[in-house]
C-alpha cells in the first residue's frame, strides 16, 4: 500500500490544532515526536479500565496488566528483530539505557587505560556516561572524526579501534542526519575485539531495524521519538551478554532473593528493571509499534527520503549561498534531519521568526556540543521530519525563512 500522507496526518490530533488560525508545522520530531490517536486511546482505555500493578500481584486484573505490559515488550522485540522479548529492557529513556551500558558493562569490564571509541557526531547521551567512567577509573576515549560533508571518516578506523574494548556510535546523527554503515562498523568493532554499542535513538523511529543483521551487541533507543509515550526507553542486548552483565539499579523486581546479608538477581529482563516500571507507557508504546508496523517502516523511510531530497533541493534552490545545510547530500545515507545556518542570523532568532508562522524547529546545540565545535558553530537551526510531514511543511519553512529578512533588514 502506498504511503498516504493525508490519512497519516488525520491520526495525529495535535496536527489539526490551529494556532492563531493557522496549522502547526511541526518540524521538531528529532527532538520528540507527536502521538497518534491510537496511542493516546490505548493509554486512556488502559487507565480507565485495566490499570493494575504488574509482576507483583496475582489477581486477574494484575495478571492482565502484566500481560499488557509484556505485550509492549514483545512488540518492541518484533520491531527491531530481537531473538527474544527477554532481550528488551525497559528503561526511562535512551539516556538511561546508555548509562546502564556504561555503568554495568563498563563497570565490570573497563579499567585504567582501556579504550572506548566514540565519534565526533555523538549525542551527549553517548558521551557523558563514558566521560563519567573516565573520571572514575581512567579509561581512554578516542574519537572517529568526520569528513567535510559530515560522514564518519573511516580512514583510520583500524588504528582507532586497535586495542579498543568498546565502539559506541550513533546509527543516525541527530544533527547531521548522517546514517553510517552500522553493520560494517559492528563487524569492525568485533574484529578488533571490541563491544559494538549502537545509539539507535534517531534510527529506529525512521527505518526498518534489524539488530541481528547489524550484528550489534547493545542498542539504545527511546519511545517518545517513535510515536510512543514519554517516560519509557529501551535497551536491546544479546541475551548471553545481558545475562553476564551485573545489575544497574537495585530494588524490587530485579532481585531473586534478598536477605540482611545480600541479594541475588533475577534473570533478564527483570534484572535491569528495578522498581515499578512505566506500565501505562509500555501499553502506549505497543500501540505505537503497531501503528508503525501497519504503515510499514520501509514505506516510512521512503517517504522521508523523498521529503529530505525535496527539502535539500528547495532550501538550497531558494537560498543558495545564504543557507548552509550541514551533513551529506545523498539521502541514501542521511535521515530527515536538516541543521543549517541561515545568513548571519542567530538560530534563536531564526526559530523565533519561524514560530510566528507556527513553524516549529529547534535552535541550539542539539545536545551535541562537541559536534558544534567540530562544525565551528555555537548552534544551528534544525528542522527534523517524521512520517506526518510533507512538502507543504518544507514550503512553509522556506516561506518563513524568506520572511526573516524583512525583520532584521540585513
Amino acid at each position, binding site marked *: 500500500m502506498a504511503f498516504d500522507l493525508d490519512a497519516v496526518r488525520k491520526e495525529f490530533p495535535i496536527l489539526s490544532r490551529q494556532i492563531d488560525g493557522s496549522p502547526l508545522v511541526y518540524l521538531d520530531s528529532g527532538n520528540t515526536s507527536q502521538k497518534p490517536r491510537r496511542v493516546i486511546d490505548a493509554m486512556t482505555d488502559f487507565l480507565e479500565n485495566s490499570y493494575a500493578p504488574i*509482576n*507483583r500481584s*496475582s489477581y*486477574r486484573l*494484575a*495478571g492482565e496488566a502484566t500481560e499488557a505490559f509484556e505485550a509492549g515488550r514483545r512488540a518492541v522485540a518484533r520491531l527491531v528483530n530481537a531473538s527474544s522479548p527477554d532481550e528488551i529492557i525497559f528503561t526511562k529513556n535512551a539516556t538511561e539505557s546508555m548509562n546502564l551500558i556504561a555503568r554495568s558493562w563498563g563497570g565490570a569490564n573497563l579499567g585504567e587505560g582501556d579504550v572506548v571509541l566514540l565519534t565526533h557526531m555523538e549525542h551527549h547521551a553517548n558521551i557523558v556516561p563514558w566521560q563519567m567512567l573516565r573520571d572514575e577509573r581512567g579509561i581512554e576515549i578516542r574519537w572517529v572524526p568526520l569528513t567535510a560533508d559530515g560522514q564518519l571518516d573511516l580512514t583510520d578506523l583500524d588504528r582507532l579501534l586497535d586495542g579498543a574494548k568498546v565502539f559506541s556510535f550513533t546509527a543516525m546523527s541527530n544533527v547531521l542526519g548522517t546514517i553510517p554503515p552500522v553493520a560494517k562498523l559492528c563487524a569492525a568493532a568485533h574484529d578488533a575485539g571490541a563491544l559494538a554499542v549502537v545509539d539507535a535513538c534517531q534510527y529506529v523511529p525512521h527505518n526498518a531495524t534489524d539488530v541481528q543483521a547489524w550484528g550489534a551487541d547493545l542498542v539504545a533507543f527511546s519511545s517518545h521519538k517513535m510515536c510512543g509515550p514519554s517516560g519509557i526507553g529501551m535497551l536491546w542486548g544479546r541475551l548471553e551478554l545481558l545475562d553476564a552483565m551485573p545489575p544497574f539499579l537495585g530494588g524490587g523486581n530485579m*532481585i*531473586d532473593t534478598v536477605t540482611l546479608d545480600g541479594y541475588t538477581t*533475577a534473570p533478564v529482563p*527483570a534484572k535491569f528493571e528495578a522498581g515499578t516500571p512505566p506500565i501505562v507507557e509500555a501499553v502506549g508504546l505497543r500501540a505505537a509499534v503497531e501503528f508503525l508496523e501497519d504503515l510499514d517502516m520501509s514505506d516510512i523511510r521512503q517517504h522521508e527520503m523523498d521529503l529530505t531530497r525535496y527539502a535539500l533541493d528547495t532550501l538550497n534552490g531558494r537560498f543558495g549561498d545564504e543557507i548552509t545545510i550541514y551533513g551529506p547530500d545523498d539521502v541514501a545515507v542521511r535521515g530527515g534531519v536538516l541543521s543549517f545556518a541561515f545568513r548571519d542570523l542567530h538560530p534563536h532568532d531564526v526559530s523565533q521568526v519561524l514560530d510566528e508562522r507556527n513553524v516549529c524547529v529547534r535552535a541550539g546545540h542539539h545536545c551535541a556540543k562537541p559536534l558544534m565545535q567540530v562544525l565551528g558553530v555555537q548552534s544551528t537551526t534544525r528542522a527534523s521530519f517524521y512520517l506526518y510531514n510533507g512538502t507543504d511543511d518544507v514550503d512553509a519553512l522556506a516561506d518563513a525563512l524568506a520572511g526573516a529578512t524583512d525583520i532584521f533588514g540585513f
Partner: protein
Amino acid sequence: MPGLEDLYREIILDHYRTPRNRGELESPPAIETRGHNPLCGDEITLYLLVDGEGDDAIVSDVKIGGQGCSISQSSASMMTQAVIGKPVSQAYALIRRFKTMMGIEGYDEQPGDADVAMGDLEALQGVVKFPVRIKCAVLGWNTLAEALDRAGV
C-alpha cells in the same frame, strides 16, 4: 470466567493436604536443587537420586522440601509420583509435555513424548486458565529439570 473448581480439583487439594514424597535425601549422593518464584517467594528444595548411566539411567528417588501454595505443592507432589522409577529420558519428556500443557512455548514435542502418560497430572490443566498460577505449577518441574541437568547422565 473460569471457576475456582477448574483450578482446585479434588485431586489437587488431596496432594496439597497430603503431599507425597515430602522430605529430604542425603546429599550427596542425592542432587539437591532449589527453585523459587520471585513473585510470591515460594521456595522448593528438590532431592534427586539417579541410578545407572546413559540410556539406562532411572530416576530412583525424589523428595520435596520447602513451602508453597496449593498449586506449586500439589504439582510437585504429583510430579514425584509420575517420575520415580521412570527412565531419565521419560522424565525429560514429561517435563516437556507438562510445560507444553501449561502453554509455555519452545517445548515442541519430540518423538516418543506422546507415549509418556500424564495420568493425574491432567488435573492441572485448569491452571492454564489462571495465567499467574502457571509459574506456581511449573516451579517443581523447573527444579527437577535443573537437577536432571546436573545429574548429567
